[in-house]
């Protein structure tokens, strides 16, 4: 059953997965290219780390698109296919979840090979070190977190999605009210700290993503 689900899901996902894999492979190489020929080690590190956001964005984007693609056929077919299968809804959801998560693997692998290519060029200045395993692992976890969040939202009913959107809207409105009432309290900042600070749901995205460091 899993193989059949994965095969059908691959059809709706392959373009996204392949494009993300190409981007993941290219990112470390592009960072190296940008840093090539700089005057000293400190500048090299600064430039390479300037590309940190790229890894985080790619992980988030890949997770989002793969999650949307996982539920896409079901949403288009109004879930008739799922209802016609002789398995429970929860098992079906887990099969979809597993199949989608599987496709993150090749993207992370592409990033790993991109990082290895950077090392193989020998262009890393003396005294600096590359951390391909740690970076790949973080990318994998970040992409899986993003995928899991959007998969859960995709699996939810329209009402749940409306509740989530409503909560975000309420948060923005509350911040606006605090601002207009001249209350010195940054609600969005606090919420941001909760989400991005450890152990927040998006904490894996925050901080430095370093392929090359001392």
């Amino acid at each position, binding site marked *: 059953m899993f193989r059949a689900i994965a095969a059908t899901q691959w059809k709706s996902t392959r373009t996204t997965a392949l494009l993300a894999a190409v981007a993941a492979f290219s990112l470390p190489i592009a960072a190296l290219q940008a840093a090539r020929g700089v*005057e*000293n*080690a*400190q*500048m090299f*590190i600064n430039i390479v780390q300037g590309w940190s956001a790229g890894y985080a964005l790619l992980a988030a984007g890949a997770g989002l698109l793969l999650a949307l693609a996982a539920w896409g056929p079901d949403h288009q077919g*109004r*879930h008739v296919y*799922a*209802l016609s299968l002789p398995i429970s*809804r*929860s098992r079906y*959801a*887990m099969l979809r*979840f597993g199949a989608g998560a599987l496709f993150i693997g090749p993207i992370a692998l592409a990033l790993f090979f991109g990082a290895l290519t950077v090392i193989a060029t020998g262009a890393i*200045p*003396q*005294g*600096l*070190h590359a*951390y391909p*395993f*740690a*970076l790949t*692992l*973080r990318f994998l*976890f*970040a992409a*899986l*977190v993003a995928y*899991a*969040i959007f*998969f*859960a939202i*995709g*699996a*939810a*009913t*329209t009402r749940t999605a409306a509740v989530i959107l409503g909560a975000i809207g309420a948060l923005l409105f509350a911040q606006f009210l605090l601002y207009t009432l001249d209350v010195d309290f940054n609600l969005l900042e606090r919420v941001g700290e909760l989400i991005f600070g*450890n*152990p*927040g*749901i998006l*904490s*894996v995205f925050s*901080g*430095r*993503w*370093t392929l090359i*460091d*001392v």
Partner: protein
Amino acid sequence: MSSARALALLIALGLPQPIAAQKIRMYEQRLDSLAAAQRFAAAARQAYELAQRRDYTRFDSVVVGPMRIRATPALNSLAQSGADSVVASLKPQYGRALDALVGHVFVVRDEQVREGDRNASYVVIAEVAADGRELEPQVVVPEVGIVRNVLLSKTLRTLLANTDSAFVNWLHSTSLPSDTASSQAWLQARIDLLSSYAIVSRHCYEGDLAACRVALGLTPSRDPVMDWLSAAERRQIVHQLDDRYWVRMDREAARICYGGSDSTCAALLHASREFLPDPIATLRRSELFQLAMVSGGPGAMERALLTRGTPEQRLVAAARLPADSIVRRWLTLVRDVRKPSEDMSPIVAATSMGWILFCGALAYRSSRWR
């Protein structure tokens, strides 16, 4: 007009005009007025500092070993525990060198600061000069740890100021080390060496101990322009200095320098020696002493401060090792210390797994019915 006359006229127009005597007088007057303003500002500052003098007779005396503190009664216990901690932490390394503190008095007093519609209590910590002025007062919150750290930094600053000027100038720091260096310091030193504008630092990184001694200032350089830099670097630095409007550089000589004349580049840099920074940050010199603390064991800083001599002789006394051995150890640490990647940690992995499972569980429990 003949071409020779036209040329002479053009040259005359192109030459800078001599400054009129009247203009020079004007500049002199301006300079005099600026000097007067500077004298006025200095006098005003001194008057202000003198006005800040306080009567410390009603303050409590806190004496911990060689450390003397005047504290307001309310802050007596805070000053006592801070001083206890400072002396206890410095005694093993600084030993009898702490006796230099006997001639110095610190003050710990409270200060009310208006914050909006309420008064907030802070602590002022300073050294008291012989004339009663508070030197470099620091205002901090009344917490034991913070008061202790400020007292520690002021103590180390005072101990350094009691040594000879050659050592103070060489160390080029406001304070002495209180502890061994962190691994982050060695990593920063590596970046320093590799990112230096001077080739002597990179030679040091490659293992040339003599170059390390020059880069660290242990071997004084008679001619830094030639000792620190390669010909290409000399040319590059002339270029950089030439771009700075505040550097007066002989443009014609600079042009010859760019053309490949290294002697001209060197001459230009000799004339602008004050614009050449040290090959690596002088902070690295403190790290030598932090390393000496490890090698020399207890009393290392006591020996360093009580030894009369060059910085190298102080370092050798502290570490009980030849200077080259200390430099070699320093270089080994700079080259070999590694840090774990900041990308991944077990906490990040565990947190991520937790959220993935949580979101998976939400999807698992989602309804079949839309």
